[in-house]
């Protein structure tokens, strides 16, 4: 197996500048994750344009954003444990056993243990990514336009069946994203589509504008309604070391959580909220013989925490090798690559090894940094939880304005961001998830271009979409992904109600 890209990546990630950028990213990421209102997508959406306008090279920006992503998965556990309010969607399950532990005066132990299992999950996930990425991109090199088009269909089918509890809304979200992607100049025919003679729309709707509007602005509006009332931070942390017994007890849970997390992460479109829920329920089924889950069982704490960190790494696999993001957050990172005019796909690993390798290497380094940051500094991060919304929300809005203005220096784009934010708020009120819209938007152009290229090759015969073996396999998988959950759902409906997977934004 050719791992040259990884060694090259370490030489990129270990330069002084990139180490410092990674450290800053880990720190910011943990803060972003710890704050209940903002998750990794918000953090990345706000940092991406600023990093770009600062003139950071692509690999440094990717290292920064990846560090924020992983840091947020670490940070999310802090507010889950101390506040019983998950810091991001991946930390929902962490609260189930983490908060009871904190109430028993074992908050410090819970933070340490979950920090360790986050580390194991993150490291195993990074290892899986490093080994799996060259394999998958090797497979995908044979993809032509037809296979690519079917791959996108597969990605949407997975998404529709797995994100949130309301598949129709997810699919509507994808379609809206695909529609937004058609705005602007059509490169093949030179036609302007849906630009309404507005020159600023000629290049299409800007990714930064869309992401910041959908996530940050709408989030600020939602926070006004969801102002947390009556939650108290648990201040008494207790002993700040993990017991050897507990570590021994949670090894199995951590390893299983990591494996589940990685696999779920690799599937397109599913993120940490799904993987942590799956790993928690699996662990409960395997280990909960005495009914201690939900009452402060360390295995219920460590399994989902390992899973959400492994998922963050797994989600990079399809993003870096196929150009199909594995989660909402990686969809935003894919958009960041496009800011740099880098077209993701199976060739990326050979054409830009410094970007792929640097990112993968930075995940290993980042996890070590995060462990070092998180164990001693957990007190400082816990204090962040007390920042009041009236300071926090204006801060988020300032960053939104700066992000959009710095990439365009135009007031029009800020107004567009506000409009998008209002629509996003309405959609979120109606129970729509924002991640599918971003996914549709990011994949929209690639999907259309590949479909049209495929039909140009075949002279308009749609049979080309069903000709190759790979395409047929992908069609079968797509149909299976769309149909199986419906069948399984109908079966389990008779049993207990499905585990609550919150259709939150930060998948």
């Amino acid at each position: 197996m050719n791992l040259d890209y990884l060694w090259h990546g370490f030489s990129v990630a270990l330069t002084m500048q990139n180490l410092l950028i990674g450290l800053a990213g880990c720190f910011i990421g943990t803060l972003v994750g710890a704050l209940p209102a903002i998750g990794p997508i918000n953090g990345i959406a706000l940092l991406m344009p600023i990093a770009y306008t600062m003139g950071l090279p692509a690999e440094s920006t990717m290292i920064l954003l990846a560090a924020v992503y992983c840091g947020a998965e670490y940070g999310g556990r802090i507010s889950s444990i101390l506040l019983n309010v998950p810091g991001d969607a991946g930390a929902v399950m962490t609260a189930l056993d983490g908060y009871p532990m904190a109430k028993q005066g074992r908050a410090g132990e819970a933070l340490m243990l979950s920090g360790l299992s986050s580390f194991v999950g993150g490291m195993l996930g990074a290892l899986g990514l490093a080994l799996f990425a060259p394999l998958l991109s090797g497979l995908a090199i044979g993809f032509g336009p037809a296979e690519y088009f079917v791959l996108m269909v597969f990605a949407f089918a997975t998404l529709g069946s797995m994100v949130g509890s309301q598949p129709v809304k997810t699919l509507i979200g994808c379609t809206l994203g695909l529609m937004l992607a058609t705005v602007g100049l059509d490169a093949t025919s030179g036609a302007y589509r849906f630009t309404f003679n507005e020159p600023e729309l000629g290049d299409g709707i800007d990714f930064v504008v869309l992401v910041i509007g959908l996530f940050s602005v709408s989030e600020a509006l939602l926070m006004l309604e969801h102002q947390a009332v009556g939650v108290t931070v648990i201040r008494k942390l207790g002993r700040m070391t993990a017991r050897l017994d507990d570590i021994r007890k949670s090894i199995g849970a951590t390893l299983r959580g990591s494996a589940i997390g990685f696999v779920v992460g690799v599937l397109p479109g599913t993120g940490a909220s799904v993987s942590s829920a799956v790993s928690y329920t699996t662990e409960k089924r395997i280990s909960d013989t005495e009914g201690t889950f939900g009452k402060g069982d360390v295995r219920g704490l460590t399994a989902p925490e390992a899973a959400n960190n492994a998922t963050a790494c797994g989600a990079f696999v399809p993003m870096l090798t196929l150009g199909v993001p594995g989660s909402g957050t990686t969809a935003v990172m894919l958009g960041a690559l496009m800011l740099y005019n880098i077209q993701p796909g199976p060739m990326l690993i050979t054409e830009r090894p410094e970007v792929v390798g640097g990112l993968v290497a930075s995940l290993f380094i980042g996890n070590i940094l995060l462990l070092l940051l998180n164990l001693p500094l957990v007190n400082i991060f816990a204090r962040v939880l007390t920042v009041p919304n009236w300071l926090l929300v204006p801060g988020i809005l300032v960053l939104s304005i700066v992000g959009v203005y710095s990439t365009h220096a135009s007031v029009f784009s800020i107004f567009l961001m506000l409009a998008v934010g209002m629509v996003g708020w309405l959609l979120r009120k109606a129970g729509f998830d924002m991640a599918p819209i971003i996914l549709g938007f990011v994949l929209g152009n690639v999907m259309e271009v590949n479909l049209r290229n495929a039909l140009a090759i075949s002279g308009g015969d749609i049979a080309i979409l069903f000709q190759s073996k790979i395409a047929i396999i992908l069609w079968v998988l797509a149909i299976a992904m769309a149909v199986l959950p419906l069948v399984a759902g109908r079966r389990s409906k008779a049993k207990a109600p499905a585990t609550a997977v919150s259709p939150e934004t930060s998948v």
Partner: protein
Amino acid sequence: MSDGTSSSTWVGRIGGVCLLALAIAYGIGGSQIEYAFASDPLGPRVMPVLLAMLLAGLCLIYLVRPGTSERFPRGRLLARILAVPALLVTSVLLLEPAGFAISIFVMTVGVGWVFGAPLRLAVIGGVGQALLWWSVFAYLLDVYLPAGRLFG
């Protein structure tokens, strides 16, 4: 069914009708895109028309079963929520004439106040944030931000 859920079902349905209208408008717009040539058999119109049909179909399913949605805010809460975009619009209009620092000050004080801070604290927070962000972006990170025509 409780009062809250039934009213939110209606909110969902209204949204569904809006989306359906969007699908129709988008489809009509898509079928009339003007182009001189196309180097591929599909051309620029087919994808938008297909997407419009897909969205319309999904909307019909959604209208039958809108699922759950949150209760829509009313009264004072709605006014406070709408105040946020209004404040943002104001500060964006101020951005180029009055400069980044003043525009940010106005927005942070206003939004801080809407989020329940006493006015005095909101003003202190606003001064602090305006100074903080201006120095971080303009000096530390060297990001271009307007200084304001009124002063330049």
